[in-house]
Protein backbone atom coordinates (compact mmCIF):
# COMPACT_ATOMS: atom_id res chain seq x y z
CA UNK A 1 0.00 0.00 0.00
CA UNK A 2 2.65 2.45 1.06
CA UNK A 3 4.75 1.40 -1.93
CA UNK A 4 1.95 2.53 -4.19
CA UNK A 5 1.64 5.91 -2.55
CA UNK A 6 5.35 6.43 -2.81
CA UNK A 7 5.55 5.55 -6.45
CA UNK A 8 2.77 8.01 -7.15
CA UNK A 9 4.81 10.74 -5.45
CA UNK A 10 7.73 9.85 -7.65
CA UNK A 11 5.75 10.16 -10.85
CA UNK A 12 4.41 13.56 -9.89
CA UNK A 13 7.92 14.62 -8.83
CA UNK A 14 9.42 13.64 -12.17
CA UNK A 15 6.84 15.67 -14.05
CA UNK A 16 8.75 18.84 -13.28
CA UNK A 17 11.69 20.06 -15.28
CA UNK A 18 14.66 22.29 -14.52
CA UNK A 19 15.09 23.73 -11.02
CA UNK A 20 11.60 22.57 -10.03
CA UNK A 21 12.65 18.95 -10.61
CA UNK A 22 15.62 19.43 -8.28
CA UNK A 23 13.42 20.94 -5.57
CA UNK A 24 10.93 18.10 -6.04
CA UNK A 25 13.66 15.41 -5.86
CA UNK A 26 15.29 16.79 -2.74
CA UNK A 27 12.00 17.43 -0.94
CA UNK A 28 10.45 14.06 -1.82
CA UNK A 29 11.36 12.46 1.55
CA UNK A 30 12.92 9.57 -0.35
CA UNK A 31 16.29 9.04 -1.98
CA UNK A 32 17.08 12.30 -3.75
CA UNK A 33 18.92 10.78 -6.72
CA UNK A 34 16.13 8.91 -8.46
CA UNK A 35 17.06 6.41 -11.19
CA UNK A 36 20.62 6.57 -9.85
CA UNK A 37 21.84 3.55 -7.91
CA UNK A 38 23.52 4.11 -4.55
CA UNK A 39 26.79 2.78 -5.95
CA UNK A 40 26.88 5.35 -8.70
CA UNK A 41 25.76 8.20 -6.44
CA UNK A 42 28.45 7.32 -3.89
CA UNK A 43 31.12 7.17 -6.57
CA UNK A 44 30.09 10.64 -7.75
CA UNK A 45 30.23 11.98 -4.19
CA UNK A 46 33.65 10.39 -3.69
CA UNK A 47 34.82 12.01 -6.92
CA UNK A 48 33.52 15.37 -5.70
CA UNK A 49 35.61 15.03 -2.52
CA UNK A 50 38.60 13.97 -4.62
CA UNK A 51 38.05 17.06 -6.76
CA UNK A 52 38.49 19.16 -3.64
CA UNK A 53 41.73 17.34 -2.77
CA UNK A 54 43.25 17.93 -6.21
CA UNK A 55 41.90 21.49 -6.28
CA UNK A 56 43.66 22.17 -2.98
CA UNK A 57 46.95 20.89 -4.42
CA UNK A 58 46.60 22.98 -7.56
CA UNK A 59 45.60 26.06 -5.55
CA UNK A 60 48.62 25.54 -3.25
CA UNK A 61 50.76 25.37 -6.39
CA UNK A 62 49.18 28.57 -7.73
CA UNK A 63 49.77 30.36 -4.42
CA UNK A 64 53.42 29.24 -4.27
CA UNK A 65 54.08 30.21 -7.87
CA UNK A 66 52.34 33.60 -7.62
CA UNK A 67 54.02 34.61 -4.38
CA UNK A 68 57.62 33.60 -5.07
CA UNK A 69 60.16 36.27 -5.98
CA UNK A 70 62.39 33.67 -7.66
CA UNK A 71 61.66 32.83 -11.31
CA UNK A 72 59.65 29.63 -11.89
CA UNK A 73 61.44 26.88 -13.89
CA UNK A 74 60.31 26.71 -17.52
CA UNK A 75 58.33 23.45 -17.74
CA UNK A 76 58.71 23.44 -21.52
CA UNK A 77 62.51 23.09 -21.14
CA UNK A 78 62.52 20.99 -17.98
CA UNK A 79 60.37 18.29 -19.58
CA UNK A 80 61.99 18.43 -23.03
CA UNK A 81 63.48 15.24 -24.43
CA UNK A 82 66.03 14.73 -27.18
CA UNK A 83 64.87 11.96 -29.48
CA UNK A 84 67.12 11.09 -32.42
CA UNK A 85 69.03 14.37 -32.16
CA UNK A 86 65.90 16.53 -32.12
CA UNK A 87 64.97 18.29 -28.88
CA UNK A 88 61.21 18.34 -28.49
CA UNK A 89 59.65 20.46 -25.74
CA UNK A 90 57.32 18.68 -23.31
CA UNK A 91 57.17 15.62 -25.59
CA UNK A 92 57.00 13.00 -22.84
CA UNK A 93 54.09 14.80 -21.18
CA UNK A 94 52.29 15.05 -24.53
CA UNK A 95 52.69 11.29 -25.11
CA UNK A 96 51.46 10.61 -21.57
CA UNK A 97 48.41 12.78 -22.28
CA UNK A 98 47.60 10.83 -25.44
CA UNK A 99 48.07 7.51 -23.65
CA UNK A 100 45.70 8.52 -20.86
CA UNK A 101 43.09 9.87 -23.28
CA UNK A 102 43.28 6.63 -25.25
CA UNK A 103 42.72 4.69 -22.04
CA UNK A 104 39.66 6.83 -21.36
CA UNK A 105 38.38 6.02 -24.84
CA UNK A 106 38.82 2.26 -24.37
CA UNK A 107 37.13 2.53 -20.95
CA UNK A 108 34.12 4.32 -22.47
CA UNK A 109 33.88 1.51 -25.05
CA UNK A 110 34.13 -1.08 -22.27
CA UNK A 111 31.19 0.54 -20.45
CA UNK A 112 29.22 0.49 -23.67
CA UNK A 113 29.88 -3.20 -24.32
CA UNK A 114 29.14 -3.97 -20.67
CA UNK A 115 25.59 -2.67 -21.07
CA UNK A 116 25.28 -4.75 -24.24
CA UNK A 117 26.28 -7.67 -21.97
CA UNK A 118 29.21 -8.54 -24.20
CA UNK A 119 31.40 -10.22 -21.61
CA UNK A 120 34.50 -10.86 -23.71
CA UNK A 121 34.78 -7.45 -25.38
CA UNK A 122 34.17 -5.68 -22.06
CA UNK A 123 36.92 -7.62 -20.26
CA UNK A 124 39.34 -7.20 -23.18
CA UNK A 125 38.76 -3.44 -23.37
CA UNK A 126 39.15 -3.09 -19.60
CA UNK A 127 42.46 -4.96 -19.71
CA UNK A 128 43.58 -2.71 -22.56
CA UNK A 129 42.62 0.29 -20.41
CA UNK A 130 44.66 -1.14 -17.52
CA UNK A 131 47.61 -1.69 -19.86
CA UNK A 132 47.49 1.93 -21.06
CA UNK A 133 47.20 3.08 -17.45
CA UNK A 134 50.24 1.02 -16.47
CA UNK A 135 52.11 2.51 -19.45
CA UNK A 136 51.25 5.96 -18.15
CA UNK A 137 52.58 5.14 -14.67
CA UNK A 138 55.72 3.67 -16.23
CA UNK A 139 56.37 6.86 -18.19
CA UNK A 140 55.78 8.85 -15.04
CA UNK A 141 58.36 6.73 -13.20
CA UNK A 142 60.80 7.47 -16.04
CA UNK A 143 60.05 11.19 -15.73
CA UNK A 144 60.58 11.17 -11.96
CA UNK A 145 63.87 9.26 -12.34
CA UNK A 146 65.11 11.72 -14.95
CA UNK A 147 64.25 14.74 -12.80
CA UNK A 148 65.73 13.27 -9.65
CA UNK A 149 68.97 12.56 -11.55
CA UNK A 150 68.99 16.16 -12.70
CA UNK A 151 68.87 17.29 -9.09
CA UNK A 152 65.20 18.10 -8.50
CA UNK A 153 64.29 17.70 -4.83
CA UNK A 154 61.18 18.79 -2.92
CA UNK A 155 63.31 21.55 -1.36
CA UNK A 156 65.49 22.64 -4.31
CA UNK A 157 66.15 22.37 -8.02
CA UNK A 158 68.80 23.71 -10.40
CA UNK A 159 66.50 26.06 -12.36
CA UNK A 160 64.61 28.36 -10.01
CA UNK A 161 61.94 28.51 -7.35
CA UNK A 162 62.39 25.74 -4.77
CA UNK A 163 58.63 25.13 -4.57
CA UNK A 164 58.73 23.64 -8.10
CA UNK A 165 60.00 20.31 -6.79
CA UNK A 166 57.57 19.98 -3.91
CA UNK A 167 54.50 20.85 -6.00
CA UNK A 168 55.69 18.61 -8.85
CA UNK A 169 56.23 15.54 -6.66
CA UNK A 170 53.05 16.14 -4.66
CA UNK A 171 50.68 16.72 -7.57
CA UNK A 172 52.00 14.18 -10.06
CA UNK A 173 52.67 11.69 -7.26
CA UNK A 174 49.12 11.88 -5.99
CA UNK A 175 47.77 11.59 -9.53
CA UNK A 176 50.06 8.66 -10.30
CA UNK A 177 48.82 6.93 -7.14
CA UNK A 178 45.26 7.37 -8.38
CA UNK A 179 46.18 5.85 -11.74
CA UNK A 180 47.92 2.93 -10.01
CA UNK A 181 44.90 2.14 -7.85
CA UNK A 182 42.71 2.53 -10.92
CA UNK A 183 44.79 -0.08 -12.77
CA UNK A 184 44.46 -2.50 -9.83
CA UNK A 185 40.68 -2.06 -9.66
CA UNK A 186 40.41 -2.32 -13.45
CA UNK A 187 42.11 -5.71 -13.34
CA UNK A 188 39.87 -6.86 -10.47
CA UNK A 189 36.70 -5.73 -12.26
CA UNK A 190 37.89 -7.18 -15.59
CA UNK A 191 38.40 -10.54 -13.87
CA UNK A 192 34.84 -10.40 -12.54
CA UNK A 193 33.50 -9.57 -15.99
CA UNK A 194 35.54 -12.37 -17.56
CA UNK A 195 34.33 -14.87 -14.96
CA UNK A 196 30.74 -13.89 -15.69
CA UNK A 197 29.99 -12.49 -12.23
CA UNK A 198 27.68 -9.88 -13.68
CA UNK A 199 25.84 -12.37 -15.89
CA UNK A 200 25.28 -14.82 -13.02
CA UNK A 201 24.65 -12.07 -10.44
CA UNK A 202 27.37 -13.60 -8.28
CA UNK A 203 27.44 -11.93 -4.87
CA UNK A 204 30.27 -9.54 -4.14
CA UNK A 205 33.02 -10.53 -1.70
CA UNK A 206 32.67 -7.42 0.48
CA UNK A 207 29.17 -6.20 -0.25
CA UNK A 208 27.30 -9.53 -0.69
CA UNK A 209 25.26 -7.74 -3.32
CA UNK A 210 24.37 -9.22 -6.67
CA UNK A 211 26.92 -8.48 -9.36
CA UNK A 212 25.61 -6.07 -11.98
CA UNK A 213 27.15 -4.64 -15.13
CA UNK A 214 26.75 -1.20 -13.62
CA UNK A 215 29.98 -1.95 -11.70
CA UNK A 216 31.80 -1.41 -15.00
CA UNK A 217 30.24 2.04 -15.42
CA UNK A 218 31.12 2.99 -11.83
CA UNK A 219 34.69 1.82 -12.44
CA UNK A 220 34.61 3.93 -15.61
CA UNK A 221 33.55 7.02 -13.66
CA UNK A 222 36.68 6.71 -11.52
CA UNK A 223 38.92 6.14 -14.53
CA UNK A 224 37.52 9.11 -16.48
CA UNK A 225 37.99 11.23 -13.38
CA UNK A 226 41.69 10.34 -13.31
CA UNK A 227 41.89 11.45 -16.94
CA UNK A 228 39.95 14.62 -16.08
CA UNK A 229 42.41 15.54 -13.30
CA UNK A 230 45.27 15.06 -15.76
CA UNK A 231 43.63 17.58 -18.12
CA UNK A 232 43.89 20.20 -15.36
CA UNK A 233 47.43 19.19 -14.29
CA UNK A 234 48.56 19.29 -17.93
CA UNK A 235 47.10 22.79 -18.40
CA UNK A 236 48.18 24.37 -15.14
CA UNK A 237 51.43 22.64 -14.22
CA UNK A 238 52.99 21.78 -17.57
CA UNK A 239 51.64 24.36 -20.01
CA UNK A 240 51.09 27.49 -17.90
Amino acid at each position, binding site marked *: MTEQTFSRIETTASDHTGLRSIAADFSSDRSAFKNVSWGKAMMWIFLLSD*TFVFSSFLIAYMTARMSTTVPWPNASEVFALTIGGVTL*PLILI*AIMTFVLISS*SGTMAMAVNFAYR*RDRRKTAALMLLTALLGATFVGMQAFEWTKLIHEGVRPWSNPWGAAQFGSTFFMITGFHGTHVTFGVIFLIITARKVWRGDFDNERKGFFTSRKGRYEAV*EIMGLYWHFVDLVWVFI*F*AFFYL*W
Partner: protein
Amino acid sequence: MAQTTAPSSTHAEGQQHPIKLYLVVWAWLFILSACSYAVDYFQLQGALRYSLILLFMMLKAGLIVAIFMHMAWERLSLVYAILVPMAAVLVFVAIMVFEADHTLFSRIAYFVPGL
Protein backbone atom coordinates in the same frame (compact mmCIF):
# COMPACT_ATOMS: atom_id res chain seq x y z
CA MET B 1 17.60 -8.33 -21.71
CA ALA B 2 15.58 -5.58 -23.34
CA GLN B 3 17.54 -2.39 -23.76
CA THR B 4 16.04 1.04 -24.13
CA THR B 5 16.90 2.79 -27.32
CA ALA B 6 16.01 6.28 -26.11
CA PRO B 7 19.34 7.92 -25.28
CA SER B 8 17.75 10.48 -22.96
CA SER B 9 16.59 7.95 -20.39
CA THR B 10 18.66 6.43 -17.60
CA HIS B 11 16.98 3.22 -16.59
CA ALA B 12 18.19 0.39 -14.45
CA GLU B 13 19.65 -1.25 -17.56
CA GLY B 14 22.08 1.64 -17.75
CA GLN B 15 23.42 4.09 -20.26
CA GLN B 16 23.08 3.03 -23.89
CA HIS B 17 24.58 5.24 -26.55
CA PRO B 18 25.92 4.54 -30.02
CA ILE B 19 29.59 3.57 -30.22
CA LYS B 20 30.10 6.26 -32.85
CA LEU B 21 29.46 8.98 -30.26
CA TYR B 22 32.35 7.75 -28.11
CA LEU B 23 34.67 7.51 -31.11
CA VAL B 24 33.83 11.08 -32.15
CA VAL B 25 34.47 12.39 -28.62
CA TRP B 26 37.68 10.38 -28.46
CA ALA B 27 38.86 11.95 -31.74
CA TRP B 28 37.99 15.42 -30.44
CA LEU B 29 39.96 14.82 -27.24
CA PHE B 30 42.97 13.89 -29.39
CA ILE B 31 42.56 17.01 -31.52
CA LEU B 32 42.18 19.27 -28.48
CA SER B 33 45.22 17.70 -26.77
CA ALA B 34 47.25 18.21 -29.93
CA CYS B 35 46.10 21.84 -29.93
CA SER B 36 47.18 22.24 -26.28
CA TYR B 37 50.57 20.80 -27.12
CA ALA B 38 50.85 23.08 -30.15
CA VAL B 39 50.40 26.09 -27.84
CA ASP B 40 53.62 25.07 -26.11
CA TYR B 41 55.41 23.81 -29.21
CA PHE B 42 55.01 27.13 -31.03
CA GLN B 43 55.81 29.00 -27.80
CA LEU B 44 52.78 31.27 -27.89
CA GLN B 45 53.08 33.88 -25.16
CA GLY B 46 50.97 36.25 -23.12
CA ALA B 47 47.19 36.48 -23.04
CA LEU B 48 46.83 34.33 -26.19
CA ARG B 49 48.73 31.46 -24.56
CA TYR B 50 46.73 31.53 -21.32
CA SER B 51 43.34 31.92 -22.98
CA LEU B 52 44.04 29.06 -25.41
CA ILE B 53 45.27 26.78 -22.58
CA LEU B 54 42.10 27.50 -20.59
CA LEU B 55 39.85 27.11 -23.63
CA PHE B 56 41.24 23.70 -24.64
CA MET B 57 41.24 22.59 -20.99
CA MET B 58 37.58 23.50 -20.48
CA LEU B 59 36.51 21.86 -23.76
CA LYS B 60 38.34 18.64 -22.88
CA ALA B 61 36.99 18.59 -19.32
CA GLY B 62 33.47 19.29 -20.60
CA LEU B 63 33.61 16.45 -23.14
CA ILE B 64 34.92 13.95 -20.60
CA VAL B 65 32.35 14.86 -17.94
CA ALA B 66 29.36 15.23 -20.25
CA ILE B 67 29.86 12.25 -22.60
CA PHE B 68 32.35 9.78 -21.09
CA MET B 69 31.00 10.18 -17.56
CA HIS B 70 27.41 10.40 -18.88
CA MET B 71 26.68 13.59 -16.96
CA ALA B 72 24.70 14.93 -19.92
CA TRP B 73 22.09 12.20 -19.39
CA GLU B 74 21.99 12.12 -15.62
CA ARG B 75 19.10 13.45 -13.60
CA LEU B 76 19.38 17.18 -12.92
CA SER B 77 19.46 16.79 -9.13
CA LEU B 78 22.62 14.66 -9.38
CA VAL B 79 24.21 17.05 -11.87
CA TYR B 80 23.62 20.03 -9.58
CA ALA B 81 24.68 18.13 -6.43
CA ILE B 82 28.05 17.45 -8.07
CA LEU B 83 28.68 20.59 -10.14
CA VAL B 84 27.40 23.37 -7.85
CA PRO B 85 29.87 22.61 -4.99
CA MET B 86 32.66 23.12 -7.54
CA ALA B 87 31.88 26.83 -7.28
CA ALA B 88 33.47 26.69 -3.81
CA VAL B 89 36.77 25.86 -5.53
CA LEU B 90 36.53 29.02 -7.62
CA VAL B 91 35.90 31.09 -4.47
CA PHE B 92 38.96 29.44 -2.89
CA VAL B 93 41.03 30.33 -5.97
CA ALA B 94 39.92 33.97 -5.70
CA ILE B 95 40.81 34.13 -2.00
CA MET B 96 44.26 32.63 -2.61
CA VAL B 97 44.96 35.03 -5.50
CA PHE B 98 44.56 37.91 -3.02
CA GLU B 99 46.64 36.07 -0.46
CA ALA B 100 49.45 35.32 -2.93
CA ASP B 101 49.50 38.93 -4.17
CA HIS B 102 49.80 40.16 -0.60
CA THR B 103 52.63 37.69 0.15
CA LEU B 104 54.51 38.70 -2.99
CA PHE B 105 54.11 42.39 -2.10
CA SER B 106 55.45 41.76 1.44
CA ARG B 107 58.38 39.75 0.13
CA ILE B 108 59.37 42.38 -2.39
CA ALA B 109 58.88 45.23 0.11
CA TYR B 110 60.71 43.70 3.08
CA PHE B 111 62.60 40.52 2.33
CA VAL B 112 64.25 40.50 -1.11
CA PRO B 113 68.02 40.79 -0.52
CA GLY B 114 69.78 43.54 -2.42
CA LEU B 115 66.73 45.76 -2.81
